[in-house]
C-alpha cells in the first residue's frame, strides 16, 4: 500500500519513425497537485493521452497503476469510469448546447421511461456550477460565455463524473489573468476536497503557486521530479533545455547584406473576439542573407503574427507598417504580399499548404502559374521541366513529378511546399515550423535548403517550437511572449536559458 494514487512505469510510445516516449516514469501522490513541465513536443500531452486511454492499452509499453490496481484502458470511457478525467487544451464543448447539456453529455440524467429529466439535469448542473464557483444559468448556451467560464464548465463536467484524478492540459493558455487566478484557486480548492490534479503547464509562476511537485519531461524522457520546496525557475529551465547541441545543424556562415523587411508596430486582434490582442506592436527586421528566428511558447502569437502579415490571413483590426527595402508596402491580400516578395510556408502543411490530391508538379506551380503563362495558356511542358528541376535539386524522393503529394512522406511534402515558394522567388521567406513531423534525416536536408536560400541573399524568418533547432540555424533570434517581442538576441548571446526567460516573460501589469 503506497500513498501514490497513480504510478506510470516505463511508459514507451512510438509513432511511425518517432519515439515519443521512452521509458517514462511518473508517480503522483494522493491529494497533491502535480505539475508536468517540458518544451513543446517533449511528450507531455502524449503521456497524458496514454494515461487517459486515448492511446489504448496495447499501443504502448509499460504499466499504469491507478489506486493500487494495474489498469488497461481501451478508451476514454474506461478511464473516466475509474475517475480519471482529462481536460484538453482545446475545450471539448458543444457551443450550441447549454451548460447543463454539456455537463451531462453522454451521461444524461434520465427520469421515468428513459427520457431525459430536464429539471433534474438543470438542478444537478447548478449544484456543480456552485462547486466550481461559476454563477451562470445552467441553460445558458456555451457560445454565450467566455473561455474562462467554459474552462470551469469543463471542470464541472469532470466533477459530475466523480473525478479522482483531474488532468488539465495547459488550462490557462487561453485565459486572461483574472480567469487564470480563479482557475488556479479552484484547483487548490478541489485539492482540499481530496481531488488529485495533474497540471501541464510551462508558466513557471503558476506552477510555483499551485504545484506540490514538478516532473520535467524532455525528449520523451523523465528528467526528474522536484518537490515543492526545491522548485526554482533555473532548475526547471535547465531540466527542460539541458540537451547537447551537437552537429545536428549544417554549418552556415552568414553573409548579411542590406535590410530587406522591416515591420513596425504590427498588431492584430483575435478574429472573433476582437477585444483580445494576439499580436502586440511587434517590431522586427530581416536582412538579406540572414536567418532570423522567432521563438515563443504555444499561444505566444508567432503564427498569428506571420499570418496577419501575410495578406491578413489571420486576425482582425490589423495595424502597423511594413517596409520592403526601405519602401513601405501594403500586404492586404495574399496576392499582394506575394507580389511584394513575401512568402509564407505554413505550419500545417496538410491543411494549409498542399493540395494533397494533386501531383507534385501542380503543387509547385500553384503560386506562380502566371509565370508559366504564354499566350493565355499554361505552358505545361515547361511546368514539368521546372517541377522536375526542383525534384532533383531539393531531393524530393518520388519517381516523377506526377506523384500525388498526399502519397509523400512529411519531409518530402515539406520540400514540395518549399519548392513552391522558392519558385515564386520571394525576397523574404517566412517558414512556420518547417520541420514539424519530419524525421531527423529530412530535417537536416531542410536546414541545408534554408542555408542555401540565405546564401542566395534571401531573408529568412523561421518560426519554431523547438528551441534547439531555432538556436541551431538562426543568425539572430527574437523572443515572443503574449504577442509581444520580449527580446532580441544575436545568436552568440542566445543561450537556451536566456531565451526561455524571455519566452516566459509576462506583460508588466
Amino acid at each position, binding site marked *: 500500500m503506497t500513498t501514490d494514487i497513480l504510478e506510470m512505469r516505463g511508459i514507451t510510445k512510438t509513432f511511425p519513425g518517432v519515439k515519443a516516449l521512452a521509458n517514462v516514469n511518473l508517480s503522483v501522490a494522493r491529494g497533491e497537485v502535480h505539475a508536468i513541465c517540458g518544451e513543446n513536443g517533449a511528450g507531455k500531452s502524449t503521456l497524458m493521452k496514454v494515461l487517459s486511454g486515448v492511446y489504448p492499452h496495447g499501443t504502448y509499453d509499460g504499466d499504469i497503476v491507478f489506486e493500487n490496481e494495474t489498469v488497461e484502458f481501451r478508451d476514454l470511457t474506461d478511464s473516466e469510469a475509474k475517475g480519471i478525467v482529462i481536460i484538453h487544451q482545446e475545450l471539448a464543448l458543444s457551443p450550441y448546447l447549454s451548460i447543463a447539456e454539456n455537463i451531462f453529455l453522454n451521461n444524461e440524467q434520465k427520469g421515468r421511461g428513459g427520457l431525459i429529466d430536464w429539471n433534474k439535469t438543470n438542478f444537478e448542473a447548478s449544484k456543480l456550477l456552485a462547486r466550481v464557483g461559476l454563477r451562470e444559468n445552467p441553460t445558458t448556451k456555451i457560445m454565450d460565455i467566455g473561455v474562462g467560464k467554459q474552462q470551469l464548465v469543463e471542470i464541472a463536467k469532470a466533477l459530475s463524473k466523480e473525478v479522482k484524478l483531474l488532468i488539465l492540459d495547459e488550462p490557462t493558455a487561453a485565459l486572461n489573468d483574472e480567469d487564470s487566478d480563479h482557475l488556479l484557486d479552484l484547483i487548490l480548492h478541489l485539492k482540499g476536497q481530496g481531488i488529485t490534479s495533474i497540471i501541464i503547464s510551462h508558466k513557471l509562476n503558476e506552477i510555483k503557486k499551485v504545484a506540490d511537485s514538478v516532473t520535467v519531461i524532455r525528449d520523451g524522457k523523465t528528467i526528474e521530479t522536484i518537490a515543492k520546496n526545491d522548485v526554482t525557475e533555473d532548475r526547471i529551465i535547465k531540466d527542460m533545455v539541458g540537451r547537447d547541441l551537437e*552537429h545536428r545543424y*549544417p*554549418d552556415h*556562415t552568414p553573409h548579411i547584406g542590406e535590410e530587406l523587411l522591416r515591420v513596425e508596430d504590427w498588431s492584430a486582434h483575435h478574429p472573433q473576439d476582437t477585444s483580445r490582442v494576439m499580436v502586440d506592436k511587434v517590431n522586427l527586421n530581416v536582412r538579406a542573407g540572414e536567418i532570423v528566428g522567432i521563438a515563443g511558447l504555444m499561444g505566444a502569437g508567432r503564427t498569428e503574427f506571420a499570418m496577419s502579415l*501575410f*495578406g491578413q*490571413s489571420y486576425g482582425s483590426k490589423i495595424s502597423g507598417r511594413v517596409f520592403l527595402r526601405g519602401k513601405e508596402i501594403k500586404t492586404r*491580400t*495574399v*496576392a499582394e*504580399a*506575394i*507580389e511584394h516578395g513575401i512568402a*509564407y510556408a*505554413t505550419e500545417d502543411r496538410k*491543411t*494549409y*499548404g*498542399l*493540395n*494533397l*490530391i*494533386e501531383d507534385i508538379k*501542380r503543387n509547385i*506551380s*500553384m*503560386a506562380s*502559374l*502566371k509565370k508559366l*503563362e504564354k499566350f*493565355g*495558356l*499554361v505552358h*505545361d*511542358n*515547361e511546368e*514539368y*521541366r521546372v517541377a*522536375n528541376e526542383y*525534384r*532533383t*535539386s531539393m*531531393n*524530393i*524522393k*518520388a*519517381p*516523377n513529378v506526377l506523384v500525388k503529394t*498526399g*502519397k509523400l512522406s512529411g519531409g518530402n511534402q515539406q520540400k514540395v511546399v518549399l519548392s*513552391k515558394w522558392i519558385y515564386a522567388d520571394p525576397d523574404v521567406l517566412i517558414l512556420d515550423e518547417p520541420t514539424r513531423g519530419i524525421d*531527423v*534525416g*529530412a530535417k*537536416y*536536408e531542410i536546414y*541545408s535548403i534554408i*542555408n*542555401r536560400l540565405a*546564401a542566395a541573399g534571401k531573408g529568412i524568418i523561421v518560426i519554431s517550437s523547438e528551441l534547439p533547432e531555432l538556436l541551431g540555424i538562426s543568425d539572430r533570434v527574437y523572443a515572443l511572449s503574449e504577442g509581444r517581442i520580449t527580446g532580441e538576441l544575436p545568436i552568440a548571446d542566445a543561450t537556451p536559458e536566456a531565451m526561455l526567460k524571455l519566452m516566459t516573460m509576462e506583460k508588466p501589469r
Partner: protein
Amino acid sequence: MSNPTPTQTPTGPTGESNAVGGNINPSDNRFTQWLSHILADLGKNGIFIALIAVVVLFAILTDGILLRPQNISNLIVQNGYILVLAIGMVMVIIAGHIDLSVGSVAAFVGACSGVFAVQWGLPWWLSVILSLAIGALVGVWQGFWIAYVGIPAFIVTLAGMLIFRGLALVVLGNANIGSFPAEYRALGNGFLTDLFGEFEIDPLTLGVGAIAIIALIVQQVRTRRGRQKYGQEVEPMAWFITKLVLVSAAIGFFAYSLASYKGIPVTLIILAVLILVYGIVMNRTVFGRHIYAIGGNRHAAELSGIKTRRVDFWLFVNMGTLAALAGLIFTARLNLAGPKAGDGFELEAISAAFIGGAAVQGGVGTIGGAIIGGLIIGVLNNGMSIMGIGIEWQQAVKGLVLLLAVAFDVYNKRRAGGQ
C-alpha cells in the same frame, strides 16, 4: 566540420532519387510493358470503357437500332442541352460547389427568349444574345451570394431553383409561348446540310469527320513529341498507334452515321466548340488550374495567393450562361417555351459529372468525363426507350447506375490510395 555542398545532402540516400524513375519497367520485357500501359489506361479511362460497354449492351438488346444513323443523330440532339449543362456543372463541382438551379434557369431563360423572339418579334440573334446575358446575370446574382456573402452554393442554388422556376411562370403568364423563327429553331434541331442541299451521304459531314481525325492525330503526335523533348515518359509507340487507330475508327463511324442521315446537327457544333474551349480552359489556363487548386484545398489555394472568391464568382456566371444556352437549345428543339421546361435537368447534369469521375469533395473531374457521363445517361435513356421500357424503370435504372458508378470510383481510389 565540412560544409555540406548544397546539391548533395549527406543524409539522404543520394543514388535513390535518380534510380527510381528509370527502373519501373525494365525494357527487356516489352509485352509486360505494353500490358501495364494498357491496364493503366483502362484504369484512367474506366469511364470511357463503361460508355463502350453500355453502347454494346444496348446495341445488342435493341437489335442494332441503337446504332442506326438516325438514332445516333437523335442521341446527340436529345442530350445536347444536358451535355452543355454538364460542362458548367463539372466545373462548379470541381471547385467544391453544386448548382441545383440550372433546370429552373434554363426554363426561365427559355421563357424570356420566347418573349424576345416571339412576342416582341426581335431578330433571332438578338434574342439569343439577350437570353445569354440574362443567364449571365442570374450567375452574377448567385455568384454574389456564394462568393462574396459566403452562403453555401447548395442553399443559394436551392433558392435559385425556386426563384427562377417561379419567375419562368411569371414571364410565361400561365401560357406556352411557341412558333419560334426558323433560325432560332435550328439551335435545337437544325442540321448543317440544310445550308448546302441534300446528298445521299453528306460529303461535308464526311469531310469534317476526316478533318477531326487528322486534327486529333496531329495534336496527339505533337503532345507526344513535346513530352519527349522535355524528358517525360511516354507510352510505347505501338500502343499509342493502336489507341489512335481505335479512336479514329470511332470518329469515322460516327461521322459516316451522321452523314448518311441528315448531316451534322447544329447542337453538335455548339457542343464541339464548347468541349474544345472548356477543355483548354480547364487544362491549360490559369483560371482552370485555379479551379482545381481551390477544389483540392481551398485554404492552400488562398495562401498561395489565388483569389478564391473571384474564381467562385466567375464560375457561377459561367454556369448561368451555359444554363441559358441549354435553355435556348431545349426551347428551340421543342419550338415551345413552357412551364415544365428544364424539369430535372440539374439532376441529370449532376449525375453526368459524377458518373464522369468528378469527386463530391471537389478537386477532381474533367470536362471529357462529364461529357461521357452525360452520354452514358443518354444511351441509357435512349436504349431503354427503344426497348419500350417505361419511364418509371428508366428512372430507377439511372439512379442505380449513378450509385454504382460513384461506388466503383470510391472503391478504385481506396484501392489505389492504399490508405
